[in-house]
């Protein structure tokens, strides 16, 4: 029920975006009776609410929805399954009792400070955007330099434009989406500049958001200076060499009043860290077992807090699974401990989950470090799969059947992506 906050739950889900709603549904499907979602925004739905473009739900609902529609459908399911949803609140801490049960401290203007008991907790806090400070662009500190997500909120939630003449640094999906959004609102989009030799966004977004709207994409180029006192006046852009060092002699200035940054996302794991949960340096998210359980027993994680996903449909699949295991655990169902560790090998940035069990089927989520085509994914000596291409911007999913793992003897399973036919490519797929 919306707004209902009781004292005791089987599963408490921190975060009411797509991951949180998926986890809550998964927990209910596994038979957990009492499930609570806590969300910090006035309305649950997470970042989906500001994503008014379409393209959501193609995999999960088999139809094309906007972000708010996708969120609305899930919220309806969640409420229908009698999950409690409390918005406009803040989880200020989680304590673990000696018997393993959790106490979640919740603050809100409506209910004050409340402590909620939970047998399982699912972390679904999502991610935040990298900022100017993270890449240290020198120059002035005028207004008009902001992350693409903040610009999206201004345009789609507040009916405001972040400016009229826009440069976009970084080719992450939000930046690409905002290039199109601002063109539709009549802004000039001077170009998208990407330091790497390939884009960081989905190919479909490059085509639909840049190519179709005549927005130029400049690869191997970055912003090297920000000019302006009160408001941004121009940026300097410079090409970079193969080691990403800018060639300042070949710089040029682009007049603009707005610089959007779409330079990556960072899972928001401050709460996880306060619990002492072990993180993976490559994903910046928790290390998880095949049941999406973190190093803290009874605490699970899924969605962008675990690793940054390309598509919300994948978040949903992962979080339904995490919620299911959290629900089972809350009911005292034990599964044998995972005994196989996944190890990222050649051209593999990360593999989630971090541990596997031969007991059942798994989906491995991974990203390559650099583009390659054609190529093969090799999982130990158990499995090989040919792929037409891989690019860092697109997450790779690989199903592993239990009968394959049963043959496995060791305790660590290495995953490599190797060229097929010997030729490596550095194109943008």
């Amino acid at each position, binding site marked *: 029920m919306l707004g209902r906050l009781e004292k005791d739950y089987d599963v408490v889900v921190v975060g009411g975006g797509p991951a949180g709603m998926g986890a809550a549904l998964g927990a209910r499907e596994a038979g957990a009776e009492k499930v609570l979602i806590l969300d910090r925004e006035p309305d649950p739905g997470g970042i989906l609410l500001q994503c008014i473009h379409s393209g959501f739900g193609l995999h999960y609902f088999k139809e094309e929805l906007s972000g708010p529609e996708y969120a609305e459908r899930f919220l309806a399911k969640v409420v229908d399954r009698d999950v409690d949803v409390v918005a406009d609140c803040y989880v200020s801490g989680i304590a673990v009792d000696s018997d393993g049960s959790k106490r979640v401290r919740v603050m809100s203007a409506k209910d004050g400070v409340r402590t909620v008991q939970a047998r399982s907790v699912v972390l679904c806090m999502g991610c*935040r955007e990298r900022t100017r*400070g993270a890449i240290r662009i020198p120059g002035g500190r005028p207004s008009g330099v902001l992350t693409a997500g903040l610009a999206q909120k201004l345009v789609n939630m*507040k009916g405001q434009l972040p400016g009229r003449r826009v440069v976009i640094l970084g080719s992450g999906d939000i930046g690409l989406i905002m290039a199109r959004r601002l063109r539709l609102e*009549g802004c000039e989009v001077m170009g998208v500049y990407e330091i790497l030799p390939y884009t960081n966004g989905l190919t479909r977004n490059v085509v639909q958001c840049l190519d179709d709207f005549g927005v130029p994409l400049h690869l191997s180029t970055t912003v090297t200076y920000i000019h302006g006192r009160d408001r941004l006046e121009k940026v300097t852009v410079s090409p970079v060499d193969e080691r990403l060092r800018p060639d300042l002699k070949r710089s040029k200035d682009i007049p603009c009043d707005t610089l959007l940054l779409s330079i990556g996302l960072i899972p928001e794991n401050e709460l996880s860290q306060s619990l002492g949960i072990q993180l993976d340096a490559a994903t910046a998210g928790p290390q998880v077992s095949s049941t999406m359980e973190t190093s803290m027993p009874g605490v699970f994680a899924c969605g962008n807090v675990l690793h940054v996903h390309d598509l919300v449909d994948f978040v949903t699949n992962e979080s339904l699974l995490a919620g299911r295991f959290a629900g089972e655990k809350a009911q005292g169902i034990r599964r044998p401990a995972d005994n196989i560790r996944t190890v990222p090998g050649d051209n593999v940035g990360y593999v989630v989950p971090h541990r596997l069990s031969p007991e059942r089927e798994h989906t491995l989520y991974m990203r390559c470090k650099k583009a390659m085509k054609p190529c093969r994914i090799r999982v130990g000596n158990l499995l090989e799969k040919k792929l037409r291409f891989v690019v860092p911007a697109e997450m790779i999913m690989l199903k592993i059947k239990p009968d394959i793992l049963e043959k496995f003897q060791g305790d660590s399973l290495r995953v490599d992506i190797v060229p097929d036919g010997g030729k490596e490519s550095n194109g943008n797929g």
Partner: protein
Amino acid sequence: MPNSKMKTNPKTKTRPQPAVGQPGGRFDVAIIGGGVVGCAIARALSRFRLKTVLLERNEEVAFGATKTNSGIVHAGHNAPANTVKGPLEVRGNKLFDELHKDLHFGFRRCGELVVAMEEAQIPDLEKLKRQGEEKGVAGLEMWAPERIQREEPNLSTKIVMALLAPTAGVINPYEFAFALIENAMANGVELRVNCPVAGIEQAAQGLRLKTPQGVFETRFALNCAGVFADEIAHMLGMKDFRIIPRKGEEYMLDKRLQGLVRRLIFPLPTKTSKGILVIPTFDGTIMVGPTAETTEDRYDWDTTPFGAEKVFSFVRQLCPSITERDTITEFAGLRPASDTDDFIIGPTRVKGFINVAGIQSPGLTAAPAIAERVCDILRDEGLSFEEKDDFEAHTPGTPHFAALSPEEQEFLIKQDPRYGRVVCRCELVTEAEVHGAVDHGARTLDGIKFRTRAGMGRCQGGFCTTRCMDILSKRLDKPFHEITKRGGGSWISVPMEAPVPAKPEGVR
């Protein structure tokens, strides 16, 4: 259980706000410039039956060198005793405890260490200790490497000796200035913002200051204009000194590094600068910097690739685990250094016009002592000082929710539910605090940020910007798009109704 930090309820009291759209007027004293020096003087004068106005060119006070400062209250051993700044530095330091008790700004005496990296520097360190002792700096001690490593285990093992000064402290300089002006205003000082002085004339009864808000007639004008102080003096034909801005770049590191050092860490000072430091700021972040580069441009607040390289290669010698990758933000400020390289404080050949110029480091430390000195000068120049009976020294601050215990937090939420709504998640800033900032004079997004820390954390305002703008828009009764970052032309958004049409042929 509630402590002194928690006695305010920002809902209950309306505080004086800057006068907007009113004509000039007639005053005893006009202070030109609302940096920490101008604000300290305003507060000192507010004890007396005087008509005082502070004229600030920006949208809020403290938006110049005060905001972009290292935030250090120096112990006082650095400046030689035979300079103007020398004695003011020591005196200033001593005045902070009482000010802090009255005005509740972020301040903590954490102590400082000046470190010697090689044996050959030890005599200089000893000289610094003697200089400090002669000036009356308390508690100076030499520490051998063993003690240094025990107290500050993250410092380089190559450090051969360190001088401890326990009375040095860290401060949020903008909070200090905000508290000073707020208290001054509560005691009758008038503040005019967006009010640059464009010209000054001598008149029969003093001076006439021309501004966009009209003419201010005053018996005395105090030139506290920071990097613009020489331009203000030029308006009366005086070219006795020149301000040569010296830029300093600072790099703020992720809060994860909290506790890396407990004290301020200084290298041995050079002629132009106290060197590049490791600063455990009042709010718990580690800041490294500043550089010291002369610039001609008084608006040049740019950070440079060169500055970052310099800062990080230097601080790594002091504290090897610091890396550039931990940077969450960076900024630069201009020290209003004069060509005499000392403070210029005193009357001029134009009657009523008093310079308080060239106040670079240790100007923040010295500010309270400078205010005392300026009062003495005004008295010598014939202004009569009569104490007010109803002077209220105390200005309660807004509680910083994140710094309170869980019990205190719960107590506050019960008093005012807006403490239960988190606006800035990275720094745990609540809605009540943002409203409190507006009550206490914030008019811009930076005004909110520097009073509450909303937007100072990891996400750098990604999540809270629109929420803070909503509150400002409502409270100042201004449309959303009129809210600025820091006043002037620093607009943040434009309404969607009137977009500029795109070029017909696209932007290729």
